[in-house]
């Protein structure tokens, strides 16, 4: 990363006086959230705002024969009833493919289904009314005549000759296939002393963000401007897409995110319902609000994680892993989601399996097939939970087969800490990882030997506790390699603009966004440190395409690493500008000055020379007193994009300690540990809390969460009583430790941390359950979620069900 020529000599992040880097400073936006003064899009009202509700297909697959709207149009409060065909005159369809996923194909998707509904829950007609309740009343009066079609509801048979092809023009139901071979996996398996083969199955999940998806679209015909209040993670991406599909120029569109009640990837995608809402606003020339209610969220929020992976590992008696072989089958919905595509999750599984380990012999095949179920796309940790569970599951099955301790087999196979830069078996490139240091730290932190002794002692009393591990790697700080190279208008770079105000405070505007992880706080801490003011004098503006630099938003754990680096550079640049101005006021040399604690000071002695408020007063109100030819520039913008590495991989290791009640099949989570290396840590508390929140989502995956579809493509448990999200009573305390290996691709050296918890937790729990049950001769469990029923079957208390 080059250092800007106009910056003073670089200090390392830790050298700045009163630096906030590495400090757990409370987030500035929390107080108002504790007072109930958040401003979520779901809270918004605008003058003349109307509400949209959607008629949704009850069938997984059906031709729309006719739509009778007369009765609905006459219902109280109704402003408009709009079909897909009518709306398609206002908004164009889209196709979710990217060129770098070779062969990925998908059919055009409309904002409202036009000829066919392709999943249960897909919108088939929109009603706009004065109130949401009246819109729902009118939806019940819309008469849609459906002709049911056979539904493709089983990924295993989606490619069979006898299975209907959902989009005949595509030829078959195969959305994407990727095959990767590295090294000599056949030889690796032949040379193994033992080959373990098993099938892992992962239940479909959904995000269940506490605030459902919310959007208020406001088309002002007088200005010919569309303002969209949208709880999205990527406002500039949505600005581009709204403009593109409504036939507008980007500068006619403004996207504002406001507070977002949880996202985790759910709100980074393009949804038909939201596209329909903006189209309705343009059509009806008034603000339209749509908030997905919880029931419709379950059938329209993207799903994820629906994979079946058959897998093999070869291992020698000395613990050396000799080969990896996986075959992944995933069933998505009828469309690849736009614009990030539904091929990425499977692609990541091929990329990441075996990643932490030295064994180069690897064969992988991934197939993505269309189904008549809700659409699937990126959700927190995208593919990592599956790749990690598969890899780490195989590692511990191999260890058990040869009678080796699970940490020992890892010690013998994890890429050595001094072997970097290196690559994984799929060719992914690692700058610098710390697998062994993290393992050693975990071993000590959890008192592994003590837990093993406790496990042994309790086993003698018929109490079955298990310890399971998961080493992981995690993609963060993505470069253009993730999406841009495939043609997506998704920005991998980001920017921060910092301005000095008239009283000496700084206002930071940034393209990264906040959904609760603390992106605002991190930007504030970095800017305050780089520039030299107390954090109370920093204001951060995010989530507004009119008022921030062009950027990517927050996803793939990029806010701290990419947004933070831009803030660091911008802070340094503004400091240089301000010192230039101060030098001319003070008749001094800029290099002899610094900014600390809100004032220009003598660099050597630290004594105050000029308060920032005074400098601002002169620059803004008395520039007549500045030397001729000198123009103060009290605002600086810098951008950053990772260039040296396609992704900043982080690494870590997790452990789960649990107890299985073999009488009831219930699992009690006793403890969880995670050692995380995310490079420079800007705010330790925020990183730890991201890990904890992510771990709990992974624990939910392992034990509770599952979108259950029947053979007709009907979601049978789409409500919060039947789809089980983790609640407080079942979750353990989670201990987090850190190792720090900064990236050299930025001055701050910060990598991302938002998704690592979710990546490793399911695999660790699976391994712990199997560790608990192994002495009983139970068949290893490899199908998530690990429900009491599945555990009872594994220990033979209940017969196998079909």
């Amino acid at each position: 990363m080059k250092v800007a020529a106009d910056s003073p000599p670089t200090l390392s992040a830790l050298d700045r006086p009163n630096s906030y880097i590495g400090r757990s400073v409370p987030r500035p936006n929390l107080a108002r959230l504790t007072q109930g003064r958040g401003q979520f899009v779901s809270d918004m009202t605008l003058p003349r705002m109307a509400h949209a509700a959607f008629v949704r297909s009850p069938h997984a697959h059906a031709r729309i024969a006719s739509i009778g709207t007369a009765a609905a149009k006459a219902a109280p409060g109704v402003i408009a009833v709009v079909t897909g065909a009518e709306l398609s005159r206002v908004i164009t369809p889209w196709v979710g493919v990217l060129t770098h996923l070779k062969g990925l194909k998908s059919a055009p998707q409309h904002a409202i289904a036009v000829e066919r509904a392709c999943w249960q829950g897909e919108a088939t007609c929109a009603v706009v009314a004065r109130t949401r309740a009246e819109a729902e009343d009118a939806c019940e009066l819309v008469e849609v005549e459906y002709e049911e079609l056979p539904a493709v509801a089983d990924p295993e048979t989606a490619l069979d000759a006898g299975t209907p092809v959902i989009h005949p023009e595509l030829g078959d139901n195969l959305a994407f296939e990727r095959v990767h071979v590295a090294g000599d996996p056949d030889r690796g398996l032949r040379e193994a002393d033992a080959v373990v083969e098993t099938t892992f199955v992962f239940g479909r999940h959904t995000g269940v963000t506490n605030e459902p998806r919310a959007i208020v679209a406001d088309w002002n015909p007088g200005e010919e401007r569309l303002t969209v209040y949208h709880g999205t993670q990527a406002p500039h991406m949505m600005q581009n897409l709204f403009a593109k599909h409504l036939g507008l120029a980007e500068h006619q569109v403004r996207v504002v995110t406001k507070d977002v009640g949880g996202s985790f990837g759910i709100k980074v995608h393009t949804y038909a319902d939201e596209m329909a809402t903006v189209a309705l606003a343009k059509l009806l020339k008034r603000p339209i609000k749509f908030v997905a209610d919880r029931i419709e969220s379950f059938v329209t929020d993207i799903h994820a994680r629906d994979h079946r992976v058959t897998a093999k590992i070869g291992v020698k008696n000395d613990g050396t892993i000799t080969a990896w072989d996986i075959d992944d089958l995933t069933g998505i919905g009828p469309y690849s989601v736009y614009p990030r595509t539904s091929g990425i999750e499977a692609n990541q599984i091929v990329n990441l399996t075996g990643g932490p380990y030295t064994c180069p012999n690897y064969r992988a095949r991934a197939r993505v097939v269309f189904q008549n179920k809700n659409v699937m796309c990126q959700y927190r940790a995208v593919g990592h939970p599956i790749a990690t569970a598969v890899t780490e599951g195989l590692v511990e099955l191999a260890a058990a087969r040869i009678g080796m301790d699970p940490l020992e087999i890892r010690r013998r196979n994890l890429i050595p800490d001094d072997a970097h830069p290196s690559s994984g078996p799929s060719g992914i490139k690692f700058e610098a990882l710390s697998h062994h240091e993290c393992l050693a730290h975990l071993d000590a932190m959890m008192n592994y030997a003590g837990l093993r002794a406790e496990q042994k002692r309790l086993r003698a009393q018929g109490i079955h506790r298990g310890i399971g591990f998961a080493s992981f790697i995690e993609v963060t700080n993505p470069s253009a390699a993730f999406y841009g190279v495939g043609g997506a208008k998704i920005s991998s770079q980001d920017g921060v603009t910092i301005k000095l105000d008239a009283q000496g405070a700084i206002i930071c505007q940034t393209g990264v966004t906040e959904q609760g992880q603390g992106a605002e706080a991190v930007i504030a801490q970095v800017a305050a440190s780089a520039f030299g003011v107390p954090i109370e004098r920093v204001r951060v503006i995010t989530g507004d395409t009119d008022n921030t630099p062009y950027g990517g938003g927050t996803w793939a754990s990029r806010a701290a690493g990419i947004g933070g680096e831009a803030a660091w550079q911008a802070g340094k640049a503004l400091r240089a500008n301000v010192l230039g101005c101060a030098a001319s006021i003070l008749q001094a040399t800029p290099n002899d000055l610094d900014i600390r604690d809100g004032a220009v000071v003598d660099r050597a002695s630290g004594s105050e020379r000029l308060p920032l408020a005074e400098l601002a007063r002169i620059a803004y109100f008395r520039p007549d007193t500045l030397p001729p030819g000198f123009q103060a520039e009290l605002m600086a913008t810098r951008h950053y994009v990772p260039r040296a590495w396609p992704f900043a991989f982080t690494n870590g290791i997790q452990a789960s300690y649990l107890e299985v009640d073999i009488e009831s099949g219930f699992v009690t989570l006793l403890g969880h540990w995670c050692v995380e290396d995310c490079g420079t840590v800007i705010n330790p508390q925020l990183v730890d809390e991201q890990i904890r929140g992510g771990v709990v989502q992974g624990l939910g995956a392992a034990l509770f969460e599952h979108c259950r579809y029947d053979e007709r493509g009907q979601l049978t448990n789409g409500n919060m009583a039947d789809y089980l999200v983790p609640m407080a009573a079942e979750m353990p305390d989670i201990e987090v430790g850190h190792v720090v290996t900064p990236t050299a691709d930025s001055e701050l050296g910060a990598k991302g941390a938002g998704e690592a918890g979710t990546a490793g937790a399911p695999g660790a729990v699976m391994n712990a359950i199997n560790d608990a049950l192994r002495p009983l001769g139970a068949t290893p469990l490899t199908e998530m979620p690990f429900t009491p029923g599945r555990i009872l079957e594994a220990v033979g208390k209940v017969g196998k069900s079909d």
Partner: protein
Amino acid sequence: MSERFHDVTVTVNGEEVRERVDARTTLVDFLREELGLTGSHVGCEHGVCGACSVRLDGAVVRGCLTLAVQCDGAHVDTIEGVSDTGEIADLQRAFVERNALQCGFCTPGMLLSAQELLAAGGVPGRATIRAHLSGNYCRCTGYQAIVDAVEAVAKARSGTTP
């Protein structure tokens, strides 16, 4: 009278409010849409997530499972009112210090539920805190920071913090 629309008088955060309500309007929608008190949130509308928690005549209830029309003559306290009186200032401070909120959507319900537990007195253990908050969904924090904050306040209020 068996009517759809009813006049109700409700005391909300100490302020008497008179409105005509559609019988089907839930209390949380009434507070949010009619009175602009958007601090109480709607997360599920079937009583599971707890984001809509408000205090009705002194007890924490689900705002989505109570009808506004049932609250004629009742006292309702929302997060805004409870916050403005300073009743939960220590809880709010502890939540901020411990980062016991991320997106903030569950937080009003969490605070009201926690306050109801703490108002009973004593120093509940972590398992008791978790059990009491088991009806408040949080997707962001994983709950530990929330338990830490509530435990810290319980100890401080009972004078057992060193």
